[in-house]
């Protein structure tokens, strides 16, 4: 079973969201997602200032196996992108919840994460997908 931290929120498309102290959202892909994709060779993060709709394709993580879109878990504006991943995409494999984060979003709505899954629900979802 892969690592699913209890303090994060999740989507069914395997993104994780961490609500920061200032209300912004830190976003990445889950350990389960990176495991499915395999070794990352290319990561494209959105430009700072871009406005995203919820569930809009906003980043690309490409492994030796396949390219995969990353969908924004909430509507908002990109306020920071992890440019370091351009040179070290493997960080998404080795530290998906830490240095492998993709972007920081200022959410359009205060309750932007309400509809997201908690760790328990995401865990159950991953489990159900495997059967």
């Amino acid at each position, binding site marked *: 079973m892969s690592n699913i931290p209890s303090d994060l929120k999740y989507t069914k498309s395997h993104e994780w969201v961490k609500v920061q102290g200032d209300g912004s959202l830190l976003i990445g892909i889950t350990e389960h997602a990176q495991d499915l994709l395999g070794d990352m060779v290319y990561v494209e993060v959105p430009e700072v200032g871009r406005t995203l709709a919820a569930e809009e394709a906003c980043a690309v993580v490409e492994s030796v196996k396949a*390219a995969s879109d990353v969908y924004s878990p909430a509507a908002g504006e990109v306020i920071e992108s992890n440019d370091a991943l351009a040179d070290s995409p*493997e960080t998404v494999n080795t530290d998906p919840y830490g240095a492998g984060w993709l972007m920081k979003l200022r959410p359009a709505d205060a309750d932007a994460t309400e509809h997201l899954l908690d760790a328990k629900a995401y865990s159950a979802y991953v489990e159900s997908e495997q059967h």
Partner: protein
Amino acid sequence: MSNRTPLYSQHVAMGGKMVDFAGWEMPLNYGSQLEEHRQVRADVGMFDVSHMTIIDLEGGAARPFLRRLLANSVDSLQHAGQALYSCMLNDDGGIVDDLIVYFMHDDWFRMVVNAATRDKDLAWIRKQANGFDVEINARDDLAMVAVQGPNACARLCDTLTDISADRLRSMAAFTAMQAGELFIARTGYTGEDGFEIMLSAPGAVTLWQRLHDHGVAPIGLGARDTLRLEAGMNLYGADMDERVSPLEAALSWTVAWEPADRAFIGRAALERQRADGVAKKMVGLVLQGRGVLRNHQKVVGDAGDGEVLSGSFSPTLARSIAFARVPMATGAEVEVEIRGGMVPARVVKAPFVHNEKLCLHNGM
């Protein structure tokens, strides 16, 4: 239907991520495909290739039959153990499959063909063998383990203590020998030195374990694919199929035109193609921008559009490489449509990497 090789339990025990490949449950990787790739380039690794189809051709007419069946000439095989890479063509010159054939003695040749084409190949070969004194036997009793990398010979010598190290070391590339239960060939699909060993199922389990005890790491199909792509080796199904001839698949070098009276299957069609000229050629691409080349992406060049065939990320070059089929007049620069954008790529001659050396001769 899903087949398992005799090494299935070993793969699972070693952490293999099992996937379906041509109806076989095979290890994609054992953790990291990139690390496995680098392991083979720098040291040595072992592959379970038991899914490949081993076919013995036995009988007095084995050689005349292969003269007809194969586009390359088995008459270049004169000494026991010599091996040859060839295509097997249909009447239109299209590639039915690519294979390696080993000459063991006048009544015995062995072929290794692809797993995905097994049934089609056997039916084709049996049909063509009509009227020849030759028996076609699929050796489903045999497993196959490949040991590849610059240290393959040294590590195999350490492992196979029943066989003298001198015998293994003195084997020339592209030759094979039968040593007791083991059929050992100095061949492979990685661009490195190495061996492919055919043996019984229990023998394979023992060999796998002993190689592992000697520090040889297991390598999955993922790294096998990027290793062969870097080495400039075609993959049947991705780079060629029955709709293309060897002349359109960068395999002209495997067609033996001489002697002119050798009537191999597909010869007439190939000769017409040679006389008229083919419209497309297969080339190597090195992506200049970011992204990864993948099968079926559109290639746009000064001479018209083409298509990406095998494409992936080259761990050795740290950028994306691919084969592509493009119009014959295509120059040195093209663009590839990747996820809606046009990314420049350089047209090069494969191999991209050979025996640990980057092939920079064509200005990648």
